[in-house]
């Protein structure tokens, strides 16, 4: 009978400390400051060009805030700007791309990286659409893509969780992995008692006896 082991690793102490630090720093910055006019990129124009829009602001804006648009607001972005908004971009808030952190022309020219921070830390290159669609960040085609590496995902590996080998994949890190079987299967090796692999010195080159379809039915051959 297998033992059940329950591990709860919810850590709250550092969360509280970090949150307190954040709030103190935020409050410290809330003093009055004089607004200044454009400091840079004057030549690239307004954040959100309105010069071709009708003079009646109420056609689009309602209420006391410029951020609130009429419920039936429509804007044909592709026809008016030449840039199509596909997938999730069609529902995104205008200010996510059109903001005073920089000219949208620059963001657009840089592709995905113009607006989205690279959670892969530069390890996977600039072509986000290799793995992600514009409708969702959920990646697709990872098994097919792995065929272009030293380690095609065959047998059980085709349905294994990425985290089994790529430490930190939950937060977007896909760092290099040693392809030796034991680098991911160390726990399996330690638990094997019939026969006792460690006792017999069978601690590497698992592929001499095992196929990647199952640990059972190993072919034992004299070395």
């Amino acid at each position, binding site marked *: 009978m297998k033992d059940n082991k329950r591990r709860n690793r*919810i850590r709250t102490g550092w969360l509280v400390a970090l949150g307190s630090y954040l709030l103190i720093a935020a409050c410290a910055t809330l003093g009055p400051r004089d607004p200044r006019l454009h400091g*840079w990129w004057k030549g690239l124009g307004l954040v959100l060009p309105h010069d071709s829009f009708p003079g009646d602001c109420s056609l689009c804006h309602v209420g006391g805030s410029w951020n609130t648009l009429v419920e039936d607001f429509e804007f044909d972005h592709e026809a008016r700007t030449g840039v199509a908004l596909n997938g999730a971009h069609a529902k995104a808030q205008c200010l996510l791309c059109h903001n005073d952190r920089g000219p949208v022309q620059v963001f657009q020219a840089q592709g995905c990286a113009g607006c989205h921070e690279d959670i892969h830390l530069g390890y996977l290159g600039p072509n986000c659409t290799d793995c992600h669609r514009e409708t969702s960040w959920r990646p697709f085609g990872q098994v097919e893509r792995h065929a272009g590496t030293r*380690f095609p995902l065959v047998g059980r590996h085709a349905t294994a969780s990425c985290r089994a080998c790529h430490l*930190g994949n939950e937060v977007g890190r896909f760092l290099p992995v040693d392809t*030796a079987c034991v680098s991911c299967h160390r726990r399996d090796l330690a638990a094997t008692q019939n026969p006792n692999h460690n006792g017999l010195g069978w601690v590497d080159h698992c592929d001499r006896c095992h196929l990647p379809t199952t640990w059972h039915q190993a072919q034992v051959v004299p070395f």
Partner: protein
Amino acid sequence: MGGEYWAENPWGRGGELHIDGEWNRLDWNLPFVDDEIDNNLRLDRLSYAWGGTRFDPTRQEVGRFLVSGMPELGLIDGYAVSHRLPSGNLVGASIGGQPEPNPDQESGKDLQISAFYRWAYDPMERLTGAIAYQKTWHNGTQDRDVFIGRMDWMPVRGWQMHGNAWLDVYTVDDVGKTAGPELTRLYLTANKDWDGERGLRALYRFDQFPSLLRQEFQLPAPDTVERDHQHRVSLSGWQRLDGGQRLIARAGLWQDEDDMGGDGELGIEYQDLFQSDSRLGLALFDSQGEFTNMAGFRATYAHYTAVGNWDLLYEFARNAETGFPGNADTFYQHRLRGSLGWSPAAHWNLSVSAEEVLLDDSANTLLGVQFDWSF
């Protein structure tokens, strides 16, 4: 289960508040080893940033975040500041802890300081370069000295070139390395798109393990750190044919400390063959891996609508294990996958997938569901 909250100007001062976290529960039921239940609450972002706008060229951020303009430095618990110079170039620095890349993202063991400089050739940033230096300590002991470089170049319409490099500097105390600088990673890619008619991409990458006290990788042994490395080069392209089909080809080569191999794929995509807004793809592929030589074919079919998409995949592969003695080294594999993406209402998205891998004497099933709501 996860959530992300991003607020602009939450206190009327033009700042940005970013919170992102997940709760994960994992139930492990494996033969031969103990069952395990694991609950993790993971905080990916909790930060407040201010400045960095056309009104204020100095940007500051505090909390847990990726350094704006230099994400290669990794996730930081601390403080970062950057200043845009009148020339448009950017100079920045940061200090703080480095959460470990494990399911908890625990912090406290690693401390880093870093500085970077980002140069832009013109206001449109068609050519940019950046260089950063990062120094880390692990449990109070000096750990890593690394220089990171990055370059992006878009010389003319349709061209995009990108490169980045990590150069570690070792001392005599670093295990498995000789004192002095060593290239840990190099990534170079060039893309050319001819107005949607054809495309070409070249890629070269080099990787080897750095010598670290911090647990950044999956248990690399000392000799792995000392000698393991990998070169990879690939070329891929596509061409639109007269009938609207797309011909797709890819070829790659790799070499590591022990072996070398490669892969290739040739395919064709048919648009709107059986119905509008659909795509049928057929491909032949071959891969010479470290342990497995794989060859097979793949068929995919996808249909897109205004509210979602669905797609099906069937793949057959013959796999030959290179290290397995005897004549039982070959097995056949069928993969079936179906997925559905559906947006039932504005701001709601549902994604479901099911995958079955059929082997000679067993079957493996994988199910996935993702449901998200953004507002």
